[in-house]
C-alpha cells in the first residue's frame, strides 16, 4: 500500500534483537507509534508448493522444517492428520510418549521465547539463566528422540523409539530440577522492579482485539481467551485432565507469565504421563490412504492447522498450513503496536508475541 506518512521508521530486517528477518515500518509522531506495517518475504521458501504431489514420507520431513523451533508439533499434527484420514490407531503408550515429547518441545520453545524477551529488555542475567535451563530440556529431548532439533520422532501409527527406563528416571530427576529453577525465575521476573517498568501495561491487546485478529496461543491466553487452547480437544490431553492457563491483563508481562506458567504445567503433564505410562507396543502400524481433512493441534505459539488432501498411495495432493505466528504477529503489529508510547518498546512488544517468521511465511 503506498501512502504518504510523516515519519516512517523501519525496524529490521537485520536487527540485534530479532532472531529472524522481518521489517516493521512504524509510522510515528514523536516517540508515539501510530501504526505499523510489516513487510515480509525474507523467508518465503514456498514449502507448500514443494509439498504438493509428493509422497507422505517426504512431506513428513518437509512439514518438520516449516519451523525449526516447534518442529515436534508440526510433525505431530501432520502425522495425526494422516492417521485421521486413514483410520490408523495409535497404541496407548505411543500416544503418551507423543505428549511427553510435545510438552518437552513446548517447554524449550517457551523458555527460548522468554529468553528473547529478557534479552530484548536487556535483562541478560535472567536471559542466560533461561538459556542454560533450555539446554537441560534439549538434553532430555535428545535422550528420548536422538536429535536436538527436527527429530522426526512421530511416525504414522506410533513413535520411532521407546522410552527406556533409565531415560524415564533421568527425565524425572531433571524435571524436579527444572521445576525448582523455573519457579525461582518466575519469582525474579514477577518481582523485578525494572522488568515491571518495561513490561507492565505495555503493548496491551484487549480481548476484543485478540478475537478480531484471531490471536491464538499464549498471546490470546494472556488476553483472557483460555478456550483457544486446542489441547482441550485432543483425546490424549483430555484423558490427562488438562486445563489451560490464562491471564486477564493482555500486556507484555502477562504474555511472558503465561509462558512461564505453561512450562510448569508442561512439567506436571509429563509427570502424569510418566506415572500412567502403560507397558506395550509403541507402533501400531497402518498405511496412509486417500482422504481430505482439516486438522489442528496446539503448537507452543498457538493453534496450528493443516488442510490436507491425499490420494490412495498416500501422496499429498493439496496442502495448506496455517501457522499460529501468522495470527499472533498480525495481532501484535496491527493492534499491540498501535499507541505504544515509545519506539524502544517496539522490539520488546514484537518479541513478546513470540514471532516466528519462518512459520509465518513457510
Amino acid at each position: 500500500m503506498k501512502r504518504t506518512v510523516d515519519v516512517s521508521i523501519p525496524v529490521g530486517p537485520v536487527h540485534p534483537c530479532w532472531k529472524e528477518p522481518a521489517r516493521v515500518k512504524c509510522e510515528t509522531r514523536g516517540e508515539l507509534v501510530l501504526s505499523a506495517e510489516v513487510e515480509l518475504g525474507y523467508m518465503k521458501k514456498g514449502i507448500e508448493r514443494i509439498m504438493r504431489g509428493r509422497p507422505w514420507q517426504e512431506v513428513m520431513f518437509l512439514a518438520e522444517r516449516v519451523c525449526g523451533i516447534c518442529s515436534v508439533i508440526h510433525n505431530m499434527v501432520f502425522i495425526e492428520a494422516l492417521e485421521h484420514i486413514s483410520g490408523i490407531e495409535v497404541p496407548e503408550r505411543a500416544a503418551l510418549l507423543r505428549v511427553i515429547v510435545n510438552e518437552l518441545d513446548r517447554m524449550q520453545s517457551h523458555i527460548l521465547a522468554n529468553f528473547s524477551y529478557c534479552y530484548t529488555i536487556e535483562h541478560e542475567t535472567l536471559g542466560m539463566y533461561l538459556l542454560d535451563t533450555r539446554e537441560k530440556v534439549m538434553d532430555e529431548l535428545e535422550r528420548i528422540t536422538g536429535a536436538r532439533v527436527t527429530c522426526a520422532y512421530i511416525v504414522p501409527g506410533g513413535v520411532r523409539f521407546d522410552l527406556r527406563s533409565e531415560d524415564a528416571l533421568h527425565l524425572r530427576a531433571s524435571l524436579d530440577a527444572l521445576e525448582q529453577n523455573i519457579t525461582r525465575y518466575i519469582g525474579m521476573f514477577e518481582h523485578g522492579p525494572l522488568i515491571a517498568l518495561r513490561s507492565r501495561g505495555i503493548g496491551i491487546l484487549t480481548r476484543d482485539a485478540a478475537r478480531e485478529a484471531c490471536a491464538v496461543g499464549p498471546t490470546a491466553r494472556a488476553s483472557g481467551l483460555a478456550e483457544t487452547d486446542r489441547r482441550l480437544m485432543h483425546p490424549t490431553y483430555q484423558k490427562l485432565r488438562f486445563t489451560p492457563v490464562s491471564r486477564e491483563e493482555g500486556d507484555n508481562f502477562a504474555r511472558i507469565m503465561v509462558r512461564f506458567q505453561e512450562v510448569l504445567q508442561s512439567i506436571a503433564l509429563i509427570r502424569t504421563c510418566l506415572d500412567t505410562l502403560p507397558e506395550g507396543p509403541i507402533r501400531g502400524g497402518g498405511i496412509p490412504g486417500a482422504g481430505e481433512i482439516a486438522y489442528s493441534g496446539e503448537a507452543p505459539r498457538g493453534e496450528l492447522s493443516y488442510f490436507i488432501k491425499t490420494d490412495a498411495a498416500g501422496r499429498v495432493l493439496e496442502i495448506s498450513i496455517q501457522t499460529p505466528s501468522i495470527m499472533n504477529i498480525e495481532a501484535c503489529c496491527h493492534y499491540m503496536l498501535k499507541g505504544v508510547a515509545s519506539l524502544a518498546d517496539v522490539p520488546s512488544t514484537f518479541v513478546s508475541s513470540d514471532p516466528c517468521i519462518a512459520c509465518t511465511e513457510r
Partner: protein
Amino acid sequence: MTLLQSLKNLVRSKSIHVAYVDVGSCNGCDIEVLACLAPRYDIEQYGIYVHNNPREADVLLVIGAYTPGWEGKLEGLWEKIPDPKVAIAIGNCPISGCLFARPHTLVDPPVSKHIPIAAQVPGCPPRPTEILSAILAVAPTVFEDYEVRKR
C-alpha cells in the same frame, strides 16, 4: 613481520565479532546459533561476541537458502561489513538448499553464488559445538597477517 602486525594478530584472534543473518531457513539453525550463547557452550569465553550488527562484525554467519526477498540485500549487507571479514555458511541450506531445493521452490541456493563463503558447516541443523569450532578454526586463519597479505 612488524611488531604492529603481530599485535594486530594477537588482538584479532581474541576478539571476534559475529553477526548472523537468516536468508530463508527453517529457524532450526538460528536457535542452534543462539544456543552457542548459552552458559554451557559459552561462546564469549573464546572472545567471540555475538553482536548481530553487520557494521561492526568480523564474521557473518549465513543461515538459509537465499529467498527472493534477499536479492540485492545480502550483497549490500556483505559490503557493509568492514574488512577483514569472513562469511561462514551454517547448515545444509546455504550449501545445497537442503530439502528446499526441489521443483517449484522459491529459493535460489547456494549462497556462495551471491557472496564469498569461506567455510561451510553442514548439518540439519549442526550442533552448537560444530558452529563454535568452525568460527574458531576459520576466523584466525583468515585474519592473520591480513595487512601483509593485502599488500
